[in-house]
């Protein structure tokens, strides 16, 4: 926003010089653009001081941990959690959303630690996967209660860590998809509803990571998993792209990550037994070129970058597929070049007409 204000000031000076805008309107126009809220030095120092005080308390308790009775240790852990959550509630009530979100993030992380420490204090054996997912669920509840998207990011991180830890087998011995398969789309919808770019970043990455939790569930069908995932992520990218013109910054973020994820999944499908070779690589290249064109058209740098990286990877993959047959490689690349030039020419003619 500050960049926009500065750019607007420069543009206004230019427009006034060109007599496009009356000079007396300059101040009123600039005042109509709100200054974004910034952390001042005192607030930043207070946050650093608070974090250092917390670290000091943790180090002191850790140094005397074994001397403290078990019940007292458990009470300490609970008090730390309730203290952070209570502070977040207080800050929320006082209209301090940044402080409230920070304290809620601390509370979510303390609760995650509390699960582990409770297991240690009372020697309760448990599954690391279940503990991490429990911490993720608790963070999600806190995020919903406080309307705090940053805590949603913490929830997704814990859920993802839980999905990736252990064997993935449930109590029944079966392998199940990770919780991210449900959590990432929910987080994406929440990011759009709450206009949170931070949560949109986490949801986009989480959607891609979720694909890897499906591999064990659909064992032996790698290409099916990744091609289906590419289609789903591509569809998600299309929806996010459609929401962008409505001024949805998180939609732009999701559009970028889902385009990256979809293209990467399409490329990874070649590691399945049933799909590899020149056909897949050529299709991957074509898809990458289409993504570059889309990224340039939408002026969306991450999408363009996804296409460029995809094109390089697909080119390398194609060369690998063709082996040392340079004549065949020249033919394939030449054909690709002709198709690209023909499409570019057609697009230019359409724009000119």
């Amino acid at each position: 926003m500050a960049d926009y204000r500065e750019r607007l000031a420069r543009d206004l000076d230019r427009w006034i010089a060109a007599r496009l805008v009356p000079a007396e309107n300059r101040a009123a126009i600039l005042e109509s653009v709100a200054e974004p809220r910034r952390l001042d030095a005192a607030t930043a120092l207070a946050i650093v001081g608070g974090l250092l005080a917390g670290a000091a308390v943790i180090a002191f308790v850790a140094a005397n941990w074994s001397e403290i009775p078990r019940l007292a240790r458990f009470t300490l852990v609970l008090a730390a959690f309730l203290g952070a959550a209570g502070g977040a509630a207080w800050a929320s009530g006082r209209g301090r959303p940044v402080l409230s979100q920070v304290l809620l993030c601390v509370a979510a992380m303390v609760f995650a630690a509390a699960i582990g420490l409770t297991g240690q204090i009372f020697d309760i054996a448990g599954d690391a996967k279940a503990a991490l997912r429990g911490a993720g669920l608790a963070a999600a509840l806190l995020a919903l209660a406080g309307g705090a998207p940053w805590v949603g990011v913490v929830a997704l991180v814990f859920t993802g860590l839980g999905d990736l830890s252990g064997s993935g087998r449930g109590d029944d011995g079966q392998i199940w998809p990770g919780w991210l398969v449900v959590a990432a789309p929910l987080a994406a919808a929440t990011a759009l509803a709450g206009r949170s770019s931070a949560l949109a970043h986490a949801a986009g990455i989480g959607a891609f990571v979720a694909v890897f939790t499906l591999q064990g569930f659909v064992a032996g069908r790698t290409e099916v998993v990744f091609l289906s995932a590419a289609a789903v992520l591509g569809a998600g990218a299309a929806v996010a792209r459609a929401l962008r013109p409505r001024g949805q910054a998180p939609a732009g973020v999701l559009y970028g990550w889902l385009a990256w994820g979809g293209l990467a999944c399409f490329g990874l499908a070649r590691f399945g037994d049933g799909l590899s070779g020149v056909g897949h690589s050529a299709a991957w290249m074509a898809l990458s070129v289409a993504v570059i064109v889309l990224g340039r058209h939408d002026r969306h740098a991450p999408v363009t970058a996804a296409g460029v990286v995809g094109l390089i990877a697909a080119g390398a993959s194609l060369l690998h597929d063709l082996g040392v047959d340079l004549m065949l490689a020249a033919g394939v690349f030449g054909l690709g070049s002709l198709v690209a030039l023909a499409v570019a020419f057609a697009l230019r003619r359409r724009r000119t007409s």
Partner: protein
Amino acid sequence: MMLPAPPARILAVAILLAAMLCGLVIREGVARAGGEEIRLAITGYDPRSLLSGHHVRFQIRGDDPTGAACAPGSERIAVAPKRWVALRRQGEAHVVSGAADSRAEAAAMGEVVVRGSLNCMSAMDETVLPDGAVRRESVSRLASIDLGVDRIHLDQAQAQVLERRLQGREEAAARAFAVFSVDDGGKARLKGLIVEGRRYDLDWW
């Protein structure tokens, strides 16, 4: 219906989560006190000694003290291990008598069944017979039971006492037991350790 304000919601969720954590501790404590008590021989966990920091790490012995071959159902490599371990009483402790995929199968092998897996690294024992022939037979050399519990957290003083009793004394390992409580669902919860006849119980303090 009006939703409560965010501060009230945050406090409500925080109290709910804290209550759930307390409930977990109480439930585990009640289950630990109410389950059937079993004792299983333990040994140190290589490459470290039994002691590390303020917790004692151990491995539950699954081998038959008589040197018999691996118990039925044991896995050499636990890729998809059997999920139930059968135990039978031998003296004051329990020893493994087999492992199976289902509780019913395991129950047919022993008096107590518990959720877990049995890993057995069998070795070939070669005996040269009087006629010069070599007889090979599989014998249990190193076997362990995984019940999801491999350590007990003790205060520093207790841990140091255990260290002194166990360090560098191979025969002491044979006299060390982990005491578990097994509930109706077959879940084992650690209650304490017995080392050289002295019992170290988990308590609330």
